[in-house]
């Protein structure tokens, strides 16, 4: 589909700026979204290679490729990069930026300059984290949770890493604020709340969590500074503090952060499944309500990470109960997706394959979460590789699959070109097999008692660790096939039409790639009655 000759797309419309300046000075939400994407993809590769390093060390007991100190730094930096640089900002910053304004019929976000500033904060945060790796005491070795009191005693560079996480958090708060305001103030006429695409709803719920939860990281950082430099005892028992208070504060932010990761992923799936089942989503209202319910209840379950840390029994009971509550809205969503597929005229395209993979992996992750939410079983598997397998199924199998689903769904819109579908499917299959071969053995190993975060292990765990490392290589091969195929598609793929998937939301009504301000005229939806999703 060729656009009318007069209209330039947002790549061609540089507003008189040249080269890289056309990017780093642009307040266009689409360019900012792509800048996030390029940054995130580079660090994703770094994070993947660090993860591969961890699995290489674990291929045999004893010292294989690195010693204990290097191993501790590897898993810490892998965690910090993956959590704070990739999965927390990932979907909102890339696809929220690019598609939220288009989906609700707006020309840009509410505060375009603030949006660009958020990206600058993001880069400053990343640089701060990188400084911690290469200066003074060497890379941090505390694990991405920076647990007290060890994190206050270690001689490695833990302070810049926490400061980096804090700056990244600020970027996240501003992005959330921007999206909330955009949704409140900039919806096109007739785009009523209950007509909004579900991805926009999920970004809205996420925005509130970003706004409510992230400041806690800031407070915690100030307390760390007060403790280290003013010797006020918050966390260090030697100063009269309580290490468990640190764990409370850390998880008050970091558990809702899990929902910052997974809610937009659920939003992506709620867009893709109806499009390829070629019918409306089953139970739109239920999906919206469960999105907001997850955003709210997800705030009050944080201490399920602390069942074995010496917290009171009453708190264990309360938080276990609340954790089980949050499973209900997630299950409602899964039910609605499956019910949407039921009797749909399904077209099995690459984005739907990723979405189905998401369903499968997310459910394994969710069900094993119940083992961890119940106090009795958690005591047995806490701090074993079972936990590692569980959250990789949720975060990587869930959010990661949704991320690739979104890329394959929206790439034709973003670049106006289509990728090679055969290689995309091969990439997915390789990834999916590799993923399960890598992480499923870790459930068994953890159940048998193999602890996480040690570079060494007992001989009895050797067999399954070989299988797991083998899976890691298969999965990484799949990731490279996927990414290379997408890059090739974006650069040289055949021209994509305006609406290759017959989607019904507004982004499919504008040219691919969209023009600078998305719409010639703000769309008027007062007359259409159907849900756009």
């Amino acid at each position: 589909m060729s656009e009318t000759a007069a209209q330039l797309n947002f790549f061609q419309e540089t507003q008189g700026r040249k080269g890289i300046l056309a990017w780093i000075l642009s307040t266009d939400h689409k360019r900012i979204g792509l800048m996030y994407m390029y940054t995130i993809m580079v660090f994703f590769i770094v994070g993947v290679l660090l993860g591969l390093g961890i699995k290489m060390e674990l291929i045999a007991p004893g010292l294989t490729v690195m010693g204990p100190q290097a191993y501790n730094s590897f898993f810490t930096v892998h965690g910090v990069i993956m959590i704070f640089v990739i999965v927390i900002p990932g979907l909102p910053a890339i696809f929220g930026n690019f598609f939220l304004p288009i989906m609700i019929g707006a020309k840009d976000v509410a505060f375009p300059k603030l949006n660009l500033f958020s990206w600058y904060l993001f880069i400053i945060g990343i640089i701060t984290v990188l400084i911690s790796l290469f200066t003074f005491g060497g890379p941090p070795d505390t694990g991405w949770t920076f647990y007290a009191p060890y994190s206050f005693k270690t001689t490695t560079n833990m302070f810049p890493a926490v400061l980096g996480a804090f700056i990244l958090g600020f970027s996240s708060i501003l992005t959330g604020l921007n999206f909330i305001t955009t949704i409140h103030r900039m919806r096109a006429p007739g785009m009523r709340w209950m007509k909004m695409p579900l991805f926009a709803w999920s970004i809205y719920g996420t925005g509130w969590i970003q706004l409510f939860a992230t400041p806690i990281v800031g407070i915690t950082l100030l307390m760390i500074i007060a403790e280290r430099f003013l010797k006020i005892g918050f966390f260090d028992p030697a100063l009269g503090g309580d290490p468990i208070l640190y764990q409370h504060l850390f998880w008050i932010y970091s558990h809702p952060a899990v929902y910052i990761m997974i809610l937009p992923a659920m939003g992506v799936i709620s867009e893709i499944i109806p499009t390829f089942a070629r019918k409306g989503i089953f139970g739109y209202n239920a999906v919206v309500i469960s999105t907001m319910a997850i955003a709210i209840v997800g705030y009050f379950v944080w201490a399920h990470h602390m069942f074995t840390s010496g917290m009171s029994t009453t708190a264990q009971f309360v938080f276990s109960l609340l954790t089980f509550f949050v499973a209900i809205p997630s299950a409602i969503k899964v039910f609605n997706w499956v019910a949407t597929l039921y009797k749909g005229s399904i077209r099995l395209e690459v984005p739907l394959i990723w979405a189905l993979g998401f369903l499968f992996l997310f459910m394994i992750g969710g069900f094993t979460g119940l083992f961890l939410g119940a106090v009795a079983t958690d005591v047995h598997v806490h701090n074993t590789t079972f936990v590692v397998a569980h959250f990789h199924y949720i975060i990587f199998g869930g959010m990661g699959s949704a991320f690739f689903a979104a890329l394959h769904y929206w790439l034709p819109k973003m670049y106006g070109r289509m990728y090679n579908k055969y290689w995309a499917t091969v990439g997915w299959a390789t990834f999916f097999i590799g993923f399960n071969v890598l992480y499923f053995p870790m459930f068994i190993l953890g159940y048998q008692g193999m602890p996480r975060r040690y570079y060494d292990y007992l001989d009895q765990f050797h067999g399954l660790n070989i299988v797991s490392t083998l899976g890691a290589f298969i999965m990484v091969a799949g990731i490279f096939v996927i990414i290379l195929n997408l890059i090739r598609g974006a650069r040289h793929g055949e021209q994509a039409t305006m609406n290759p998937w017959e989607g019904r939301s507004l982004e499919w009504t504008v040219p691919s790639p969209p023009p600078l301000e998305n719409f010639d005229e703000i769309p008027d939806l007062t007359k259409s009655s159907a849900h756009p999703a």
Partner: protein
Amino acid sequence: MSEHKTHITSYTTHFMVLLALLILTWATVSITNINLGPYSVTAALLIACLKATLVLLYFMHLKFDSKILKISFSAVMVVFALVILLTFFDYLFR
């Protein structure tokens, strides 16, 4: 857009709020003389919340702002209160 009309609060109101804040500060200090056990934190937090509410409503003009801002702000306070409450399920029962 109607938010641009400014509201002018009288000196008397400002003075009364200031007086209330001073009295509450005195109450915070004097309540430490009574031993309330674990509830001394609760008492201090309650008084602090009351003071913060006064400052927000009058000095920061939340009382005269639009409804959506009031709702958003109250939501933050409710979440914050619930978080403290849940944390005390740990500290009070340890």
